[in-house]
């Protein structure tokens, strides 16, 4: 029962990552695409932790931490670029 609810939650997260990807494709400006990228990364972190639970490998949590770090640095870099150029 609990496993089934976990799977349903993961499927809902997958659907939401698809919706955000649509916004990333049609987004009119660069800021829209960056917001969509940020949102996609955070949902992907949740999914990585779910995969770590599914395969019972704790090492995948490190992947999630590094992914969050890289996403943060990437968004800050794009914001700097938009504000005054490189």
């Amino acid at each position, binding site marked *: 029962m609990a496993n089934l609810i976990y799977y349903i939650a993961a499927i809902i997260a997958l659907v939401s990552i698809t919706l955000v990807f649509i916004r990333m494709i049609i987004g009119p400006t660069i800021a829209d695409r960056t*917001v969509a990228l940020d949102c996609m990364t955070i949902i992907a972190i949740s999914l990585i*932790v779910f995969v770590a*639970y599914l395969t019972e490998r704790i090492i995948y949590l490190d992947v999630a931490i590094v992914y969050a770090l890289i996403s943060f640095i990437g968004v800050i870099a794009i*914001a700097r670029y938009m504000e005054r150029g490189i």
Partner: protein
Amino acid sequence: MELFGSIITLIGSIVLLLSALGLLRMPDVYNRMQTGTKATTLGTILFLSGISLGHPECGCLGKILVLILFVVLTNPVSSNALARAAHFAGIKLTDRSVKDDLQKDNMEKNEEEK
């Protein structure tokens, strides 16, 4: 306990779905940024804590706490920097917005410099 954790995870994934819907339907960049940051932060907190509550025996509570803390600390910072950069890059607000204090402050600052 496992059922409790799975229900919290389900609530978190529904919050993530709502944030994705808001990201699709909101009218301009700043509104999208609000849904894309606040709702995803709450959804991620619920999702991760639900997984770690459902399986306390796996020994992953510390790393998940570090991950939650990192998301909570960095998500508002990055969205704030992005909103400021978008405002200075000249991206228009939607027609229905009523107040733009940053633009007013910038105009006052420019007049003082002159």
